[in-house]
């Protein structure tokens, strides 16, 4: 229950965080001129006619970086409690954390050796 009370204002902030940026957009929508035409609404690509579909296939490397990031992101969340309790840890817990960091490093070395971190 205490946790709920502590976090309740965050919910309020979520509402404010939507209203506050939306307000100037609404005000601007009331004030600004609206004179659309076909040329104005066309896609701007430095004045050149758009060729083909925009949502094209792209480099697979972007996905691979995303996957490598996911590995690290999840593992770092597991490391945070270890870091918080660090000063009171005994030798075993300290070693377990080290083992975990070693696995993390191992993943990085594996990705590196497999050329997952090469751009071209």
């Amino acid at each position, binding site marked *: 229950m205490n946790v709920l009370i502590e976090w309740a*204002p965050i919910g309020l902030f979520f509402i404010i965080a939507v209203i*506050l940026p939306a307000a100037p957009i609404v005000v601007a929508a009331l*004030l*600004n*001129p609206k*004179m659309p035409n076909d040329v104005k*609404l066309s896609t701007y690509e430095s004045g050149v006619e758009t060729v083909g579909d925009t949502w094209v296939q792209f480099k697979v490397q972007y996905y691979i970086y995303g996957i490598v*990031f996911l590995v690290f992101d999840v593992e770092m969340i597991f490391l945070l409690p270890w870091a918080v309790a660090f*000063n009171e840890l005994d030798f075993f817990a300290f070693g377990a954390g080290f083992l975990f960091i070693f696995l993390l490093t191992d993943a990085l070395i594996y990705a590196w050796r497999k050329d997952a971190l090469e751009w071209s």
Partner: protein
Amino acid sequence: MGNFWIVLIISAIVATLPLLLAIPLIWIERKVAARIQDRIGPNRVGPMGLIQPIADALKIITKEDITPAGADKFIYNIAPIISVGSIVLMWAAIPLGPRLPNARMIGVDLEIGILYVIAVASFGTLGTLMAGWSSNNKYALLGAFRVVAQLVSYEVPLVLALMIPVMLAGSLDIQDIIVSQRAMWFFVMAPLAAFIFFISAQAETGRGPFDLLEAESEIIAGYNIEYSGMKFGLFFVGEFVHVLTNAILLTHLFFGGWWGPFIFLQEYTLFGFIPGALINIVLGLFYMTIKTAVLYFFMLLLRNSLPRVRIDQLMDFNWKFLVPVSIVNLVVTSFLLKVAQAGGFGIGPDQVNLYVNANLANVLPVTLLLLVGNLVIVGGLIGIYGRQIRSERVAAEAAAVGD
């Protein structure tokens, strides 16, 4: 029910503050950039051009707002709101002054404040990605791809560097991290982590030498190319305030936040009528502003003086330099902390407690130990990269002779 209204008013004030701060920030940004480029900068509207950002805001609000015909309208319209909203959410848990018995200088006092701040900061990435994807423009889409690659990658060293102050303070609460720097800034204990955090924070905001997601010379404006009017303005407000927020976070994590001389956490009154809480609030804001301003200036300096990197260099710099270095830094720092604990001068509840009995004399040994550890890492890096650069230079010279 009265409690609800107080919380509502506090939340509204804290949420409005970053958006109001954007107005002077734009002026500072333009003036500093102008000075670096040997120009004068805005100087027509108001004294020294101080009213210029307000004039710009009035202009931008009356500009026509164009939604391209092929755009995904819902996502296109909601993207700038998410971009700015993430900053507002970050400010909810960032302390602006000491935690006092009957007053607080923070929107929501969370026990895991720093984790919350990092988590909601990622919403900004989502906003940028949505803007690039929904614009139906190839330049915007390229910008959005780069956002995914860059912002997501640089979050890894950011969080790994963040782990060092969390480890030293033994808490995820930003107020605790600040209070535990009473005797010694964490910048002195872990300068390497501070630098890594600084660089990653600069990349997270998408500026400085890392502004690939809006590289003008390559993809025109990147993810916000199709935006105009107020929505375009909101992206920039979001960016400016994000830089300030990162400067404040850096201040809190490594430079003692609002802590400084003449701040006492127990209740007292000066001359019998000035409440100590008031002095704490004023002084805390003063110290915090000065430290943040210096760091903000360094961020501007970095942005305006370094050339843009290529995207392969950007990704290599993150994955092959920053991430390994921050892992090594984490291992060395944690190992040295345990060594210090075994030696009886480490940080811990029964040794040097940073919250209770910390003073310069008993923090100094562990600080020196960590500092030496950091210097050893830096020395090793210089050794490795120095050799690599030398061999590359020799190869280049040999190739030049061959010609």
